[in-house]
């Protein structure tokens, strides 16, 4: 199990950093994205999460944890529950 914590605004400016964060660690069963300190998330961030989903093993589990209600709403509108575990 491994945790990636995102702080502040989750947007296009994190594109390379976010990719770097998971590309070195691709043999875990459970990945936790800690979003409890994310204030804002845009559609580019959704794209980055999808890109991560594609990059790691299909049978690995990605959990999006601690999102505030505004962000949870964005995740649900785009039905990210189909690819991620939203907690």
């Amino acid at each position: 199990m491994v945790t990636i914590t995102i702080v502040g605004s989750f947007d296009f400016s994190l594109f390379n950093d976010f990719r770097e964060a998971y590309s070195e660690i691709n043999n875990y069963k459970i990945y936790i994205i800690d979003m409890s300190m994310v204030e804002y998330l845009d559609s580019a961030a959704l794209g980055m999460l999808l890109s991560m989903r594609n990059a790691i093993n299909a049978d690995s589990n990605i959990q999006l944890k601690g999102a505030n209600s505004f962000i949870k709403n964005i995740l649900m509108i785009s039905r990210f529950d189909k690819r991620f575990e939203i907690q």
Partner: protein
Amino acid sequence: MKLLCVDSELVYREIISLCAKNENVIVKAVDCYEDAIKSFIDFAPDIVTLDVIIKGGSGFDLVKKLKSLSGNRFVPMIFLTSHATDSVMDKCFKYGADDFIPKPFNEVLFNIRLKTHIRHVELMKEMYRKNKALTYYQTMIEREHDMAHNVLDHIQTRSEKNSEHVVITRLSAASFNGDLALVKTRPDGARLVFVGDFTGHGLPASIGALPVMHAFFDAVDDLLDVNQLASQLNRILFSILPDYMFCAGYLILMTPHGDITYWGGGMPHAFIRRANNKIDYLQSNHMPLGILPVDEFEADLQCNTLNNSDTLIIVSDGVLELKNCQDEMLGCDQVRTLISECYAEKSLVLAQEKIEKKLTDYRGESVQLDDITLVALRNACPQQ
């Protein structure tokens, strides 16, 4: 690194040259005002040392002249002089000096100061280079945004013109984000609507828009079913967009009698303002277009009905996330209130003007961050 040494005394020219050469600096030494100006232009030094008293002119005038000749380039000017009173020193800096060392000077001190100035020059050069590169990229991105705007504006010209049955509002943000709205009446009288929101900004966001437009207008001509069009758009976008890009959207077909079938993915609720001021919603219950492979894509549709004097309003998230001067988002509740008020108006065109004004007023002086798209439709059936 090049240093120009201006000094009328041979002994100082030799000491300064020797010190500088030990720091791997190329030195040119001159003894008078005129040669100093000439060498500054020909030799193009990075650093200058000079005295207050020089043959053929004054050091104050010289420093002023050399500073003006260096233009945008930062060339540190170091005074080395035996006239080390406070008033002389003050005058040196007023005329443009960057440093002041009294003569006779300590060689160690001079070397340290020289190294400091060399570091400054290198930093300035580096900053200049980076600034130039950034300016270049910024200009390029601005051009890309303009181009993306043009591409999308061109696409929208094929869409239906505003009328009492359809109105489309698009307010572009400074940083364009790829909203697309298409409306066209099919040969059988039914109206096909696509409101989409591409991820990303600038040119990449508009790449998907061209094939979407072609598929949309072909579907209008061929009376293609909405679920088939949804599958087709998904397949096209899945194959051309990278995995971090997609398009949220509604595909809506409305018959002349107001029967609605629709597919929605990744979009906020759309509103139906009933004639009695009740608000109903269309809900998008799928993942956006361009994410799921063909075998996983779900094309099931939902239904609703638009009766006479009802209004269907589809907004992009740019409307919900519109911020006022206090940095507060408009939000779903306030949008619902605005819709409820504005679309009480009998004329759809006037209603749309009202809501546009309300949105502009809400925004006030704050910067619009996102594109705003607002499409409103009414039943084409004649009033009974």
